[in-house]
């Protein structure tokens, strides 16, 4: 924009007005954007830019995964990948705001440090190995059945039912969905595993 001043001498009356109107400070003083944070600050360069939120293929209404305030999020998706996560201005809880953690949600879900494959460490081993997901699930199921077998308690010393195993423990749930907690509790209860805990105890 400022480059225009180099041509100062050559501008005609009409050109001068265009030039002045093109000057951000003038637009800021006379236009609808006195703080200079919107229209007044635009340049040809910035006019050519588009927000990631405009070009998204879809938007999912979501909720921040960190603390329990429950701020609303809008998750913007482009080409099957998360392109941006912003606060949801409609939310009566958060009114569009996100704190540093909520604002970092996109970095969280797209972090290169995320593990995306199953890792397996054998007893007494000094390293990780790869393992197929279905094999892992199968091995875990076998270990659950073995632990039940080894530690099952049918009745107490007076013959009252116990129906349980104290050989299996679980910790976690506060970061998960209600539906997930429901299935976790239901399955563990049916397998007789009692020692199910989460962050609410901590």
């Amino acid at each position, binding site marked *: 924009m400022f480059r225009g001043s180099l041509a100062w001498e050559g501008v005609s009356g009409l050109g001068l007005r265009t030039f002045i109107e093109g000057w951000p400070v003038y637009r800021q003083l006379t236009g609808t954007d006195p703080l200079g944070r919107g229209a007044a600050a635009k340049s040809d360069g910035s006019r050519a830019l588009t927000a990631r939120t405009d070009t998204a293929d879809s938007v*999912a209404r979501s909720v921040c995964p960190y*603390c329990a305030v429950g701020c609303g999020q809008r998750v913007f998706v482009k080409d099957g990948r998360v392109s941006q*996560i912003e606060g949801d201005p409609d939310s009566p809880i958060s009114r569009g705001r996100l704190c540093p953690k909520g604002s970092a949600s996109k*970095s969280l879900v797209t972090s290169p440090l995320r593990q995306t494959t199953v890792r397996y460490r054998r007893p007494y081993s000094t390293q990780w190995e790869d393992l197929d997901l279905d094999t892992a699930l199968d091995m875990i199921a076998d270990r659950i059945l073995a632990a039940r077998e080894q530690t099952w308690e049918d009745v107490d010393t007076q013959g009252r039912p116990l129906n349980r195993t104290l050989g299996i423990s679980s910790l*976690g749930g506060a970061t998960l969905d*209600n539906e997930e907690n*429901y*299935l976790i509790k239901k*399955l563990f209860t049916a397998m007789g595993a009692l020692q199910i805990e989460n962050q609410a105890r901590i």
Partner: protein
Amino acid sequence: MAEAHPVGFQWVMEAKRRGAKVFHVDPRFTRTSAVADAYLPIRAGTDIALLGGVVRYILDNELDFREYVLAYTNAATIVSAEFSDTEDGDGFFSGFDPETGTYVQDSWQYEGHEGSSGSGHTAQERDSAAGLTHESHGAQVGGQTRRDETLQHPRCVYQILKRHFSRYTPEMVERVCGISEAQFLELARAWTQNSGRDRTGMLVYSVGWTQHSVGVQYIRTGAIIQLLLGNMGRPGGGVMALRGHASIQGSTDIPTLFNLLPGYLPMPHHAEHPSFDEWVDSIRHPGQKGFWGNARSFAASLLKAYWGDAATPENDFCYGYLPRMTGDHGTYQQVLNMIDGKIKGYFLLGQNPAVGSAHGRAQRLGMANLDWLVVRDLFMIESATFWQNGPEVATGEIVPQECRTEVFFLPAASHVEKEGTFTQTQRLLQWREKAVEPPGDARSELWFFYHLGRKLREKLAGSPLPRDRALLDLTWDYPTHGPHAEPSAEAVLREINGYDVATGAPLSSFAEARADGSTAVGCWIYTGVYADGVNQAARRKSRHEQDWVAAEWGWAWPANRRILYNRASADPDGNPWSERKRYVWWDADKGEWTGYDVPDFEKTKPPSYRPPSGASGTEGIAGDDPFVMQGDGKGWLYAPSGVLDGPLPTHYEPVESPVRNPLYGQQANPTRKMYAHPVNSVNPSPPQEHSQVFPYVFTVSRLTEHHTAGAMSRTVSPLAELQPEMFVEVSPELAGEVGLAHLGWAHLVSGRAVIEAKVLVTDRLTPLRVDGRVIHQVWLPYHFGFEGLVTGDSANDLFGISLDPNVLIQESKVGTCDVRPGRRPTGPALLDLVADYQRRAGINPGRGWGSSPIPASVSVARRVRWPARSGTVCRRVASICWVCRTTTPAL
């Protein structure tokens, strides 16, 4: 709050802009203090003394909201003549049983109800964290109570309260908490002046309150104040818990907790609940007033949701399939059992105990002694790599080649890669839409558990064993979709909501639940979230298009009610207390309750309704009894049952404290849960000897930029960059005393561990004058561990394991330590340093500290002054009492 719940804090700032006065009480000056009107530095662990001071201030100056207190609380109710207070027992209420370290609660009851406490099982109640079952309802009271509406009877709750807190004077507050009289009075004045007909005051707390050996009583003290001032059930009032995880409320309601089933139904106990009828009656208390009268319907409908066609009235809906508790099965007991080799397998689901739980070394040693461990997380966390990179590998306590634990790491789907509901801190369910597919092998927990269950059932098909019936009869047929056969979260939510078994139609309210097997309900308090077959939690009507209650954004349990007990927002006649605080009221013309919120009362029960004599259940609740889940319909200033460490909050020192309790001979909570185990220990406190070995108080909390154990923040570059290093905040005075340099290193030693941190010398920490001497406190963030982009020693390693008796939550907001300049030793020298401190402090880990049975060798010393039961004797052994853990008898 600005620090840990920043966006929630915008509402505090909004209130401040409209004239509210904001007080911030915290051991450390934080971002909240910076914008508060007043900052009160407090000695960690002394909140009951401060709040008790406020209670005394209210009662002494008769500043309670008398009309509210008389009508809606139990202030006028008369308590048993057998009750004796901590004022008379030097820190003990009547009924203490030194053998178990718990109370027999008969004498705490209302007059004429002495036999109804369900007492005699308090040790068992502690083990099963029975206090948690009161989250959605109060404890029982049967029949009518005697009252004195003039509040003059010496045994009415009001007078008992007055006597109990009479010594919590401003001078005492200053002596215990280190808060000046002037600052205390400013707080008490503002709180009382902003409560009443026209104004309400709010009390906000976070996890810092629950992580104490007296955590439940902290919150009770807050509730007493709010009831006395008429701040409960009214807009702008309440006791507001700010919880720390996206759905920690949901995982309590639909509990992944050992002692609960969905909707706060208790997990059965082998001796207490051998039959379905005994289990149900223990919840509904036949003859009791209030909404729990319908417990049979909730219980039968849950079992119907679990076991479908197999669950019939004839077989008690497969009640026999439920596993039974026999004692304490909480997470800390489990970890000690892991160390002892009693546990085979362990699942970690988005939780990182190696950093996030108290006594990190015990956590890691436990995990190193399993057959197998399954870790499901977004990132490679410390709890998955302890065998490789943990501090115990450096000290030689864990040798990878000798560590037998088989570890499965399974990547998890993130919050944008699955759909489902979180329940946020105000009981509000919000549905999340799925944005993208999870990467690679990453899957939701819904996927993992659904398919794990499928596999288990396939492997067991045809099994003749009775123990496998519960798995084989389980309803486990959720529809799946997509490339990975993801189960439908909506189908699960429908089951949680509940449905009519014959038609499959979703229920609209828990009142529709039936005890005859015709309804199935996964979590009765969530019934209505799928009312009319619509996912109500997915509602997203903009705040611009509805009123300030925003009832059409998400769905709150119960029944989409945003403020609980909101009947109390109207006076006994059903009219708003004031125009300004109008919320829910009685519409006499229409003959129903109405207002901005869903009324928390039977819709057409008039304020004038009085129960016929002998009425129970909801019929027994009068038209002016707003606290409908309580057995007497009243807000409890005094809790005649249900709180294991006493009917009234009492100031006890933290389990580890450099200070002798200035109020009572009893030093710490006598009912706290302790574990005698070789890895566990407690630093000595006065009047024990050697407390000066650990002269400083330390406390831990959060930073805005990190999240709990760091798995979701130390792995995220913008957050890691903002807070890149473990540090300890110390006052300039302490830095001078110990010789610490700003930005240099310090190490901190407790009886469990030594950790190091960079030093931040700052006047955010204030040395406090307590009981005539200066107490220094240091502060640490607890987010750091040895994995991720930024690493550091874990503050939680410093803590031992001592628990609140009501809920079995550990004291991990206050402990004692020594602070030394420089870096900590490494390798085996680190263990030598801790051992040296243990020796100097007289700590013999695992001995003399537990709540284990008293050895036969104990000689009878002398009778106690507050005989819990006649014939009770002091159990003091050699130098340390097994009961009170003090070195000097209370006499």
